[in-house]
Each structure stands twice: as C-alpha cells, then as structure tokens.
C-alpha cells in the first residue's frame, strides 16, 4: 500500500489535466494550498459567526435581516434564539480549532514547505497526502451540513461534554442530527490528521537531502515534525472518543451516560456510563491540541525572525529542545481542564504542577526571541511585524495561564471570560499571527508574486491593536465573574459592565473587517502583484534556492546537497550577509551560538 511512494509519483512526467493538476493532485504544494484555502474559508465563516454572537450578546433583540432567511428556526424574525446562539458558539469553536488552527499553520504550510525545506521532491506518501486533504474536506462538508439540516447545528460547545452530547434529541434543538454530524465530522477529521501526521513524520525521517542533518533543519520544519508527533498521539485518542460517542447516540450503548437521567421529562434508557470518561479522553486530546495549534506558529515565527534579524537566534538548539519539552509536557496536564469536575482533589494538584512547569520552556522561548533581537539588524516587513506581534500576544496570553493553572484560583475564574480571553490570545490570535507572518513571508514563493507591503502593514496595525482591544477586556470581565457561554447578560451585577461588552463588539467588528484587507491583498497580489524574485528576503533555507513558484518536482529532479544550517546570517557570503544552506562556499566569520 505504501507503494504510493515518491518515485511512482514523480519519476515520470508532470501531471496532466485540470483534475490531476489542481483537484486530485499528488503534489504536496497543491495540497498545501488546498489546505490553506480550506482554512481561509473556515476562518472567515468562523469570524462571521463570532460577529453574530458579539452582536447578539450586546443587542439581544437586534433583528439581523439576512439571518431569518438563512435560518427561520434559529432566528425567527431575525432575532437569534438562545439555542441558535449556542449553535453559533459550537460551530465557531469547532471550525476555528479544527479547520483553522490545526489546518493553517500545520497542514497547509507544513505540506507546502516541509518537503522543500528538507530538500525532498514530495511527501513520503503523496497518495496518502491527497487522501488526508480530501478526508479533511469531507469532514468540513459534514460539519457544515449541520447548518442546512432542519435540526440545526449542535449546541453542546466545541468540547461537547457528555451526557448532553450523548443523549440525542431530548438534549434540545440541534442535538439529534446536528450533534451526530459533529461527531462524525470530528471522527473523519481525526483519520485525516493521523494520515497527515504519519506522512510528515516519515517524510522528515527519510527524505532529508544529503547533508540535511536534524540540526540543520529550519526551525519551522522542526516545529512541524514535533507537532506531527503530538498530533499522532492526540488524534489517535480523540478518534476512539468520537466512536464511543456515536455508539452512545445511535447504538444504544452507555459509555458516557449514567443511569437515572431524566431529560425533557423522559427517563433515559441508559445506565452505568461515565461522563468523566468523555472529559478525560477529550482533554487528553484537547490540551495537546492547543500546542498543535501554537507550535507550528512558534516555528514559523522563529524562521521569519532569524531572517529579518539578519543574525541567528541566540541558540536554535535551545528553541528546538524547548518546543520538544512543551510537546512532551502537553500530555501530562489535561486534567487542569477538569479541576472542578469532581476528580480527586489530590490529582488536581498533581495536574497543576506540570501545567505551571510548561511556562518554563515557554519563557525560555520568549527570552530567546527577545535576546536575539538585541544587537540585530531588525528588518521591518509585514512578516516580521506579525512575528513580533506573535511574541507580544504569546506573552499576553501566556501570563494569564499562571492564574488558571492554579486550582485554587481556577475555583473562581473557571468558566469565566478570563478563560476565554486566555485561550483566544495564546491559542487563537497568537497562532494566527504565526499564520499571517508565514503568509506574508512565503506568499512570493508560493505564487511567484509579491504581496502589497502597504496593505500588509495596515492589516497588521488594525489586527494587532484590535486583538488587544477584544481580548484584554475579557480578562477583566472574568475578574468580576462574568460567566462565558451566556447569550445575554440579564444579571444585575453585569449591567454596569455591558459597556465593556459593547466596546469589545465594536473592536471585533473593526478587527474582523480588517481581515478583508488581508483577503483582498491575497487575491489581488495573486494575480496583479509584482513578480517575485527567487529569494526576495535574502533567506538561507532551501525553499529560497529554487524558482518562485517552484516547479512541480521542486528541485528539477536534482537532489540538493546541504552544507550549512539555515542560520548563516550576518556572515560574509558571496550574495551578501548570508549563505544559503545548499551553497558549497565556506562561511567566513560565522556568528552566534
């Protein structure tokens, strides 16, 4: 079955015909772009859902004209019902976590650049690669179906806690077929991610070009490699969890559903299941998932920084080890999502310490990035701006982790907007900044055209300031005990703070609107941007040693030989202050480390 290996894919002539070239292509570059496109669709869908939520939250009786035509049940007369708010929330979370944060920084860029950066012609298993994308696509279609079925999308949140998610229609609108679609979609997504990770790992292990030792791999390649190891483990656990969920819903089993539940006046015909089982399985996946989202961005940001600093990081080796230990620790902390779920209070402390410990490698990374700025020739480009913005966001979102990692404080802050602010900043905004940095940095290579720097900078300024305006106030609202996942704030104590929510909504609308500048920049530059040279940023890694866009077999059938690590900046090279990985010249006056 692994016969679908590199030679077959690429030994003979390039693919012919539209379908083979652009749709069912085996070319990792096309597949990477497909992932990126899917993520793009998903991220804008998710963003618009969040707009609807923000608007509904501050103007609960607002009539949203178009909406009533889209969903008469969800928004009678254009007024969003409480359950439809929860549907929006569930779909927003699911789309963003799975189809954006997992796809964009990892699957999309990883697919496109991992093989090139290690000097390979393609992924180890191009056919698997194509399968994993189309499986992901299928998962997305199945999920989106929930919007069109009469039952509507599920209302159980992206964490889909059992038994709410497991009992079926009695749990409320959207919980009959909407919830099933969710479970099936995520199960399919797991399979796709497993195939993808397998491919990444095999590729990194086996297809490195001559001289491409592990320590000579660019930092983003490292990040993708580590991420694929995490993903392999995480999704291999989420898949069984989903299978059990589906069985509970449709085969009458009781894995998650205990006895004597009376829901909608009906005694549920189940017994003996354990709701905590779902939480354990889910968070065993769920916490590593946070790092599946953020690690690739760390890699991309490091990759972009090295280039725009024009000097190596203080130590790339330390960066690699830090990312490894983050990946490793991420498997020992899932319990910190369950401090209040009635697990043994002793184990709460047991989960608290490794959680706090993760801040050590995270801090090391931050300090390395900061320290590397010192004495550099920092070039300000859209890419580097977003990379620096990533650092700022990563710190902002990281420090709030200190609070939530402590069970005693979690008693008060759990399930408040503090948590929402925390994970949106560190997992959402930060990793999206990584994606933006990557986009502005690699777009010339991917399309052969430059993006508009001006638009890019406008995009950065609005997004950067906007993100703080949206998510910083969430922390404050958390402090006063503002509970998350509420569709409106009827409580008296909230009234004085509704202004804050209004402010956040306006910030969200503006920041969201700014993303259309980015979209326009993407599309416009794709066709009208000025042609890109092979190496516009004077970068060292292999992807810049080949034409932009690269030919279908990357290196034109030659196998590149690697002589240097990708950190040869600030040296006297023939082309300037850098030496490319595949240039045989000797490095004079190597700096750093």
């Amino acid at each position, binding site marked *: 079955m*692994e*016969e679908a290996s590199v030679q077959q894919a690429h030994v003979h002539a390039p693919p012919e015909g539209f379908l083979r070239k652009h749709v069912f292509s085996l070319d990792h570059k096309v597949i990477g772009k497909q992932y990126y496109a899917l993520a793009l669709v998903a991220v804008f869908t998710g963003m618009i859902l969040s707009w609807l939520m923000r608007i509904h939250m501050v103007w609960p009786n607002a009539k949203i004209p178009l909406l009533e035509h889209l969903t008469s049940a969800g928004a009678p007369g254009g007024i969003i019902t409480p359950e439809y708010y929860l549907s929006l929330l569930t779909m927003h979370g699911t789309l963003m976590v799975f189809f954006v944060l997992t796809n964009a920084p990892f699957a999309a860029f990883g697919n496109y650049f991992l093989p090139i950066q290690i000097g390979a012609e393609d992924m180890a298993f191009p056919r698997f690669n194509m399968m994993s994308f189309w499986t992901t696509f299928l998962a997305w279609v199945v999920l989106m179906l929930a919007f069109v079925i009469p039952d509507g999308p599920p209302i159980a949140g992206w964490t889909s806690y059992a038994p709410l998610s497991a009992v079926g229609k009695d749990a409320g609108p959207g919980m009959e077929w909407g919830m099933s679609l969710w479970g099936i979609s995520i199960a399919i997504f797991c399979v796709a991610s*497993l195939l993808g990770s397998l491919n990444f790992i095999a590729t990194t292990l086996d297809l490195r070009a001559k001289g491409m030792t592990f320590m000579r791999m660019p930092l983003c390649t490292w990040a993708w490699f580590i991420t694929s190891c995490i993903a392999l483990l995480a999704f*291999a*656990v989420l898949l069984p969890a989903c299978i059990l969920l589906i069985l509970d819903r449709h085969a009458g089993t009781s894995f998650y559903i205990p006895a004597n539940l009376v829901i909608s006046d009906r005694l549920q015909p189940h017994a003996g299941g354990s709701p905590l089982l779902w939480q354990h399985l889910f968070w065993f996946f769920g916490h590593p998932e946070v790092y599946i989202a953020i690690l690739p961005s760390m890699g991309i940001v490091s990759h972009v920084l090295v280039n725009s600093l024009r000097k190596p990081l203080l130590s790339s080796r330390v960066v690699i080890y830090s990312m490894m230990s983050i990946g490793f620790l991420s498997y020992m902390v899932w319990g910190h999502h369950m401090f209040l779920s009635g697990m043994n209070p002793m184990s709460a402390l047991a989960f608290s310490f490794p959680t706090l410990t993760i801040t050590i490698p995270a801090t090391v990374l931050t300090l390395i990035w900061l320290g590397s700025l010192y004495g550099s020739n920092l070039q300000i480009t859209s890419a580097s701006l977003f990379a620096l913005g990533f650092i700022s966001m990563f710190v902002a979102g990281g420090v709030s982790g200190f609070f939530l990692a402590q069970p005693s404080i979690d008693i008060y802050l759990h399930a408040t907007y503090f948590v929402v602010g925390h994970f949106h900043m560190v997992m959402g905004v930060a990793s999206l900044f990584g994606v933006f940095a990557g986009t502005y940095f690699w777009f010339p290579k991917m399309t052969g055209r430059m993006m508009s720097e001006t638009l890019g900078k406008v995009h950065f300024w609005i997004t950067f300031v906007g993100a703080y305006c949206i998510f910083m106030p969430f922390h404050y609202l958390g402090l006063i005990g503002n509970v998350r996942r509420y569709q409106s704030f009827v409580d008296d104590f909230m009234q004085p703070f509704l202004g804050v929510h209004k402010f956040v909504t306006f910030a969200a609308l503006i920041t969201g609107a700014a993303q259309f500048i980015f979209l326009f920049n993407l599309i416009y530059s794709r066709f009208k941007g000025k042609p890109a040279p092979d190496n516009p940023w004077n970068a060292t890694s292999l992807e810049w040693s080949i034409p932009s866009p690269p030919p279908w077999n990357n290196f034109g059938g030659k196998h590149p030989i690697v002589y240097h690590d990708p950190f040869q900046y600030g040296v006297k090279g023939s082309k300037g202050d850098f030496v490319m990985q595949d240039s045989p010249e000797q490095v004079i006056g190597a700096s750093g*480390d």
Partner: protein
Amino acid sequence: MSSRIPPAISAGIGAFGPVRASGPAAVAQAKRGSTSSSGIWVGVFAITMSFAAFTSALFVREGTSDWSHLALPGVLYLNTIVLLASSATLEHARRMMATVRAGQGTRKASAWVIITLLLGLGFCAGQVLAWEELQSQGIYLATNPNSSFFYLLTFLHALHVLVGIFVLVYLAGRLVASHTTLRRSLVDNTAVYWHFIGVLWVYLLLLCRMKL
C-alpha cells in the same frame, strides 16, 4: 522484529551533529524503501495508541455496577490459532523472497501468500461466527457494557484485518503475475502490519478474557 527498526530512525538519532558545522554531513539521503517502512511503524504506533485509549475507557467503565461477566464464544480460540498461523505463513513467504533472487521462486512464495490470504479470510469468517453465536444468546452491542466493548474491539480489529487482506490480495496479484519490479519493502511492510494485527488480536483476546 527488533531488526526491523528502519535505518532512517537510527540515522536520525545519530544525526544530532554540531549545529553550525559546515560541509556535507555523513548522512546520505535515506533509501526510498525505508520511507514506507518508517511509515508502517508510525502507523502501527498510532493504531496501538487508539486501542490503548479504548483499553483505558474499558478500565474506567469497568468500575460500574452493571458490569457483568461475558462468556466468550469458543470459536475465538480457533480464530486465534488461524490468525497466528497466517502470520507464520506470511513470514515464511517473506523469508523465501528475501533469500531467492527476484524472478525465480516467487511462484512458491505466492502460494504461501495466498494461503495467508485464505487464513485471514478464515479468521474474519470465524469472527462473524463468534458474533452470531453471541447474538443467538440475545447478546447485542447495547446489551451490556461488556458486550459493547466486545463487539466494538473485535469489530475494529476485524476492520484492520480487512485492510491487511486487501494488501495481501494486491501482493498476491503482483506475485502471481511475477512482477520483477515488486519491491521488497512492500512485502516487508505487509508482514510487519500483519504480524502486528496478530499481536493486537492476542492482546484483545486476553483483555476480553480477563476484563469482560
């Protein structure tokens, strides 16, 4: 099996060279064959993980009151023998092809592969018998947690066996047509996967025996 660790991994481990060393390091690009071989090992690891997850789910669920003993159908033990036998026959075929030069002897090997194939199908048939026996006793997927786990685990395992069978069909086909281009790695990886399926089954059987 221990000798089947793909060279690339060991190469990789050895490859933590000095970061800023220049000039080509001693790592040649890994042979294509080993690509699929590290692939299969990663895959095996992933499958192991998900069955580990099922196992932990089983342990959690086991604590509850409605946990009752399940009498395993006797045919399962026969199936076990069949599956292990098929593992042996496939290994035999693999060795045969490893020794003889490509071209000659593949016909003999193909005979063994086909036997493996038949044994594999036999195993599946046996599993179906086992399910029917339980159902004749009125024990279905949702009857009790034990039966849920039994059907779930055996069914998922059977799925993996089927995947193996498809590969065996493909393999047998190419052997019978005595392709000279047939790559060793295909045979080796199929063997790895098939042995793994066998080991996994023995584990599941013991698990069901002890816990269900």
